[in-house]
């Protein structure tokens, strides 16, 4: 592009299609990304209900939602982090490490499980703080830092428990996390996830912090000049991400009654996919939590239906990867098409006054 000085400089920094918040009433048939994902969710659900045996059953709904709990949890802080233009790829490894720490504490510390749960969440926050220090304190790119801690934390989780598993958690605890709300097939665990989603949604969309997140995701320098503590805010986001990973680690361990070093391996791919699928821009500054929730559900429905249809795990990874690429490519392609239509309309107006 910029090879040629004779090309007029593009209006620097103006990408008119990037308007967080209100995107309604745009481009007719193309619609907004949020609406498209919700529609995709409905279509995927209907197709699965018709085509996949046993999909539309209460029992499957329960499993589907239980499977989605860790994904949904991790997607919440990830959304905020990606909105600021950063990323946290170490989430699955933090879940794994928190799980083995929980196992080791239960095995050898003699502490009560309640206390262990609190400790694990705090340890998760500490792991996130390490990411935060490297990203904000030393000013390193979060992509590099969290790829590093992705490997580091996974390695440490094998140091904590070796290749053994801790499985002797009290049965009333392990049963509690999978129990449905009485009279429904919705697991109780959905309730804290929904509450947490509300908290993150309010923070992102209806607080001063949320405004600052969008500002720094679009232009960190201008945010600084407006009095936003960019580094401090990002640091606390990484801490929040770690703490939520601690929660997810607890849930994972109790649900499968198993603390193992390889718990949640590869989950970061699914989390990032869900967030981008939900319309959050990988470049930061754009996206809504509602879209992400729809993205999580869509991804869950697709994966669950394919699993029921006996598609193997490798194929699932292929699907997830394809969705990830598509959710990065499609918004750009849609933006291009829109711009082209817009230009054509302008030309039509000019030639036919």
């Amino acid at each position, binding site marked *: 592009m910029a090879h040629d000085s*004779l090309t007029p400089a593009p209006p620097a920094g103006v990408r008119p299609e990037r308007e967080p918040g209100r995107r309604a009433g745009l481009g007719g048939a193309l619609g907004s990304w949020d609406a498209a994902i919700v529609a995709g969710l409905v279509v995927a659900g209907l197709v699965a209900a018709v085509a996949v045996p046993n999909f539309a059953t209460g029992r499957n709904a329960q499993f589907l939602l239980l499977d989605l709990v860790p994904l949904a949890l991790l997607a919440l802080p990830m959304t905020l982090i990606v909105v600021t233009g950063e990323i946290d790829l170490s989430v699955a490894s933090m879940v794994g490490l928190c799980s083995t720490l929980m196992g080791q504490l239960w095995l050898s510390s003699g502490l009560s499980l309640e206390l262990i749960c609190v400790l694990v969440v705090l340890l998760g926050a500490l792991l996130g703080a390490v990411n935060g220090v490297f990203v904000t304190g030393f000013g390193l790119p979060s992509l590099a830092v969290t790829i590093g801690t992705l490997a580091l934390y996974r390695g440490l989780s094998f140091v904590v428990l070796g290749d053994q598993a801790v499985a002797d958690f009290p049965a009333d605890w392990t049963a509690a996390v999978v129990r449905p709300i009485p009279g429904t097939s919705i697991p109780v665990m959905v309730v804290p996830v929904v509450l947490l989603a509300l908290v993150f949604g309010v923070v992102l969309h209806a607080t*001063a912090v949320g*405004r600052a997140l969008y500002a720094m995701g679009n232009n960190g320098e201008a945010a600084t*000049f407006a009095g*936003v503590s960019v580094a401090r805010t990002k640091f606390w986001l990484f801490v929040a991400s770690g703490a939520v990973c601690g929660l997810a680690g607890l849930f994972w361990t109790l649900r499968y009654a198993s603390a193992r070093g390889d718990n949640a391996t590869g989950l970061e791919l699914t989390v990032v996919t869900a967030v981008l699928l939900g319309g959050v821009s990988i470049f930061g500054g754009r996206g809504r939590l509602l879209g992400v929730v729809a993205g999580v559900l869509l991804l869950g429905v697709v994966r669950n239906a394919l699993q029921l249809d006996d598609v193997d795990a490798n194929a699932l990874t292929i699907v997830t990867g394809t969705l990830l690429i598509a959710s990065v490519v499609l918004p750009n392609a849609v933006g291009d098409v829109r711009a082209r239509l817009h230009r054509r309309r302008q030309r039509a107006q000019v030639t036919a006054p």
Partner: protein
Amino acid sequence: MSPDTGESTSSPLLVLDDIAKSFGAVAALRGVRLALHSGEAHALVGENGAGKSTLVKILAGAHAPDSGRMTLDGKPLLLRGPADARAAGIAVIYQEPTLFPDLSVAENIFMGRQPLRSLRRVDTRAMNRAAEQLFARLGVRIDPARPARGLSIADQQLVEIAKALSFDARVLVMDEPTAALSGVEVDRLFGVARSLCERGAAVLFISHRFDEVFALCQRLTVLRDGAWVSSGRTADLSVDEVVRRMVGRDVDSLFPKQEAVLRDTLLEVRGLTRAGVFSDVTFSVRGGEIVALAGLVGAGRSEVARAVFGVDRYDAGEVLVAGRALPPGNPGRAIAAGLALVPEDRRQQGLVMELSVERNATLARRAALARLGLLFGGAERAEARRWTRRLRVKTSRLTAAVGTLSGGNQQKVVLAKWLATHPRVLIIDEPTRGIDVGTKSEVHRLLSELAGEGMAILMISSELPEVLGMADRVLVMHEGRLVRELSRDEADETSVMLAATGQGAIA
């Protein structure tokens, strides 16, 4: 100098006639004409939104005109893209050139057409030699082998001009090249432009600064609202006349400075030092007072402002607002203490271009507008509406991305954002850079009003008329030091420029 006869005997080199261009329903240009003569510098002036940029883009081949004729040397000229413009010998120098920072100066000049040796290897030596010859023709010294990163904007423009020379450009369009240059750099650029004219090139010069227009250009064309107003010899015109033609009315007073009523000291800076940037800067600003910080570009003025506001850290010294020390490096605390900074670079520092007008206007007040920590749009909208109305920001919707506004309106949004915080001290860095005459005088009137209400204003400006017209006191910086303090009566062009160039002690 080229023979400058009263009437042009030569036929013009490049002629634009009855050019029209619309974007959607908006007519950006209609009936515009322009004739550039070889060996002459021609000024193009007009308020922002008058159509200057569109005209430049047509000359650069980026936009095709909807109708009208262009001829070069009497032959019809059709520009289907930037490559055509270049082939026709038309080069455009922008206010802020975009060079590849990590490539050498010579590589930037010869990008895409480097001299080659066997096996298609780049002949670096031949390339550097060729670049050196270009710089020699321009009479400037830039090392062709050095990386472009770190070149001043003035030098970057010279690299662009060298590139244009290497294409044998006969028409050189300079789009506000001097906006970011200091006086010395402007003189050098003008020297280069004049020598290009002597060699028979035609220069189209776009600027908001009339002194420069009159110093450099033989002819002048005025645009207003996309339409051609007049073309003529600059010698036959006065500044007042040009301004009247640009705005279509009399600008009653360019600098509506009111008499200052001095109140308590609101901003005090003591011994502020940042190693290698500025040292031992001490000054104070009282309520009701406008203090200008003058100096050449690079003297450290903006850096002082950034340190005072807390965007940058400093090594020594202290900043007090209304007698209370500010913690260093914390803009949030500075805002809370009543400080506001309208930064120099609107696009990078002042605004988040992708966000809406209302989000930008309320960004600095986001916490104060929340009820019980929650923000639900209504309070922000009301606040944004109040301030954009008061400052008369022209925008279709408050939800429009601020990047779609004109420069003057963007500057008003930055001002709205900071005035909404009800600051006691306003630091404003280049308040009117790149905005049109009408908005300029609005901004000046506003600053004067705010000072009248008791605000302490520290104004950094590279435009001497603005400094002299607005300031109650002028502080002059030179190479990171505060070298002179001049009262309103003492300050004139000579005294400020002498101090700014480091001769203050002698003067």
